[in-house]
C-alpha cells in the first residue's frame, strides 16, 4: 500500500480501526481533537460505534463496559482529560480488562496549555489511579510508529488482559508524516479475536444456567482474597516486565563519550543534535525507550560504553523518566538532566549546545 501523508492523531485512529477496534468513546480536547473527529467520520462506515460521551469519566466507564464484553475498545484524550479517566483506568486494571487509552499530552499541571509536553510520564508509568497496578505504556516518536503502536497495543491488551496506554504528545498528534497501514482485519478475524475472551467476558447466557455466568468486578471485600488477586496481578506484571521491553539504540558504540536518554518527541530532537556533533567528530549515543513501562533498566545500563563520562537525560518536563534512568545507571556514571516545560519544545540547536558543553567538561 502506498504511503499517505497524515497527522498522527488521524493515523492512530485509522490504525485502530484496521486493528479491529469497533467501539470508541471519548470527549474532545485539544491537541487530540482530530482523533475523535476521525473516529466520528469513520466508525459508522465500518458499522462501529462512535460515541461522544458527556465527559471523560463517562467515556472511560463505557470503555469498561465494552471491554467487559471482550470487544476491542479505545478511548483517547489529552492530559487533563486523562486525569479525569484515572479512576476508571484503575478499575480496568483491577478487573483485568483489555483496552487501549491514548494520551496526546499537553502542557500542565491543571488545564495548562495546548502545546506538546511530556509531563504525564509519572502518571502513566507509576500509577496515576489508585492501587497497585501497572499499565503497559508505549511512547511513539513518529507518525508511523504511533500508527503501528495501535495494533501492537490491542494485541498486548488482549494477551495480558491489561489496559495499554499510548503516551504521545501534541507534536506527534498535529504533525504530518508519511504512513503506511496494515491490511484491515476482516469481520471474521474480528469475530475470532473475540473468541479468545469468551471464557471470561460478559455474554448472553444461552443455557440459562446461573453457574455459567461471568462477573467483571474490581471489588473484593475479603482481604485474603484481594491479597491473592493483587499478587496474581503482580505475577502478570513480572511476565510483562520480562517479555515486553522495547527500546531503540541510536549511534551506540564504544566511542560514545556521552549516552543520551530521551523518549517520544524529545528523542527526535536529540537525534538531530547527535548527528550534528557527529559531524564534528564527537561520539554521542542515544537510548530511546519505546515502551516506557516496562522500562529497559538492564539494557540501558549495558549501553553505557567504556568512554561514557555522563548519561544525559532530555525530556519535555522537569525530570520524570530521569528517576528510572538513575535506577538503571545505579551510580555507575553521573546522570545529568535538561528539559523544557510548559509546552515549549527544545530545538536541535539547544540540545547541541548542551552536548557541546558536556563534551568539554
Amino acid at each position: 500500500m502506498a504511503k499517505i501523508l497524515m497527522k498522527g492523531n488521524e493515523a492512530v485512529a485509522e490504525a485502530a480501526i484496521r486493528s479491529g477496534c469497533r467501539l470508541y468513546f471519548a470527549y474532545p480536547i485539544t491537541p487530540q481533537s482530530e482523533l475523535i473527529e476521525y473516529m466520528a467520520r469513520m466508525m459508522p462506515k465500518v458499522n462501529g460505534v462512535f460515541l461522544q460521551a458527556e465527559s471523560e469519566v463517562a467515556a472511560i466507564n463505557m470503555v469498561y463496559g465494552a471491554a467487559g464484553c471482550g470487544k476491542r475498545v479505545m478511548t483517547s484524550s489529552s492530559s487533563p482529560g486523562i486525569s479525569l479517566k484515572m479512576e476508571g483506568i484503575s478499575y480496568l486494571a483491577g478487573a483485568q480488562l483489555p483496552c487501549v487509552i491514548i494520551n496526546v499530552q499537553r502542557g500542565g499541571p491543571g488545564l495548562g496549555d495546548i502545546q506538546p509536553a511530556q509531563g504525564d510520564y509519572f502518571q502513566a508509568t507509576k500509577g496515576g489511579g489508585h492501587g497497585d497496578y501497572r499499565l503497559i505504556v508505549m511512547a511513539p516518536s513518529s507518525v508511523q510508529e504511533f500508527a503501528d503502536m495501535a495494533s501492537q497495543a490491542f494485541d498486548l491488551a488482549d494477551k495480558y488482559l491489561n489496559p495499554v496506554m499510548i503516551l504521545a504528545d501534541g507534536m506527534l498528534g498535529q504533525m504530518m508524516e508519511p504512513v503506511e497501514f496494515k491490511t484491515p482485519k476482516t469481520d471474521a478475524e474480528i469475530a475470532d479475536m473475540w473468541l479468545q475472551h469468551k471464557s471470561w467476558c460478559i455474554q448472553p447466557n444461552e443455557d440459562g444456567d446461573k453457574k455459567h455466568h461471568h462477573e467483571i468486578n474490581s471489588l473484593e471485600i475479603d482481604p485474603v482474597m484481594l491479597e491473592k488477586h493483587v499478587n496474581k496481578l503482580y505475577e502478570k506484571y513480572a511476565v510483562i516486565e520480562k517479555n515486553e521491553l522495547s527500546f531503540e539504540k541510536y549511534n551506540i558504540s564504544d566511542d560514545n563519550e556521552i549516552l543520551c536518554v530521551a523518549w517520544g518527541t524529545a528523542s527526535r530532537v536529540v537525534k538531530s543534535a547527535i548527528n550534528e556533533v557527529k559531524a564534528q567528530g564527537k561520539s554521542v549515543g542515544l537510548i530511546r525507550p519505546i515502551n516506557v513501562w516496562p522500562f529497559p533498566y538492564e539494557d540501558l545500563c549495558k549501553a553505557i560504553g567504556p568512554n561514557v563520562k555522563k548519561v544525559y537525560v532530555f525530556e519535555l518536563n522537569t525530570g520524570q523518566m530521569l528517576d528510572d534512568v538513575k535506577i538503571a545507571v545505579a551510580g555507575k556514571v553521573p546522570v545529568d538532566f535538561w528539559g523544557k516545560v510548559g509546552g515549549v519544545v527544545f530545538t536541535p540547536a539547544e540540545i547541541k549546545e548542551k552536548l557541546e558543553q558536556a563534551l568539554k567538561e
Partner: protein
Amino acid sequence: MTTEIICAGFGGQGVLTIGKFIAKVGMTEGKNVSWLPSYGPEMRGGTANVSTVVSDEEIASPIVSFPDILVALNQPSIDKFAPSIRPGGILILNTTMCPHGCKRDDIVQIAAPLSDIANEIGNPMVLNMLAIGVIIGKTGLIKYESMEADLTSYMKAKNPELLELNLKAIKRGIEIGKS
C-alpha cells in the same frame, strides 16, 4: 541531502498549505518528509508558520532551528525567522506585505510583490501556489510535473478553472524563482 523549510505569514494566506504540498509531493517523489504546523489559539489574521523537512535520509527532528529556505509572506515572519536562516540559505519574501525587507547579505533573497501578482492572476488565494512555484524554480526541491499531477488528481473533475488558475500561479512562481 536534507532541506529544512519554514513558511510563515498571516493566518489565511495559506502558509500551512505551502508546507503541506511540499511534503506531500516530496513524499510521492520518494523522499522522507515531515510537516509540523504551529498550532494553538490562532485564527485568520493571526500569525501561522509551518516547519517542513524533505530529506533523502531518515528525518531526525521535525523541528527546524536553522532553515535552508524561509518563505515569508509578511513582515513579522521576516522579523521572527530571517535571523535564523542558514548562511547561504534562501529567503523568499512577499514585498507587498514586507515593507522593511531583510538586511542580511549572506543569504539569497528572492523578493517579489507576490500578493499583487496573485491578484493579477485573478485570485488572492493563489498566493501560496506562487510561493511553491518560486521554491520549485529556485531550488528544484520538488518537480513541477509531480505538483501538477497531484493537483490534477483531485481538482480536475471538481473545479477545472481553479486548477488552471493554480497551475498558472505555480508557473509564474517558477519564472520568478529562475530569474
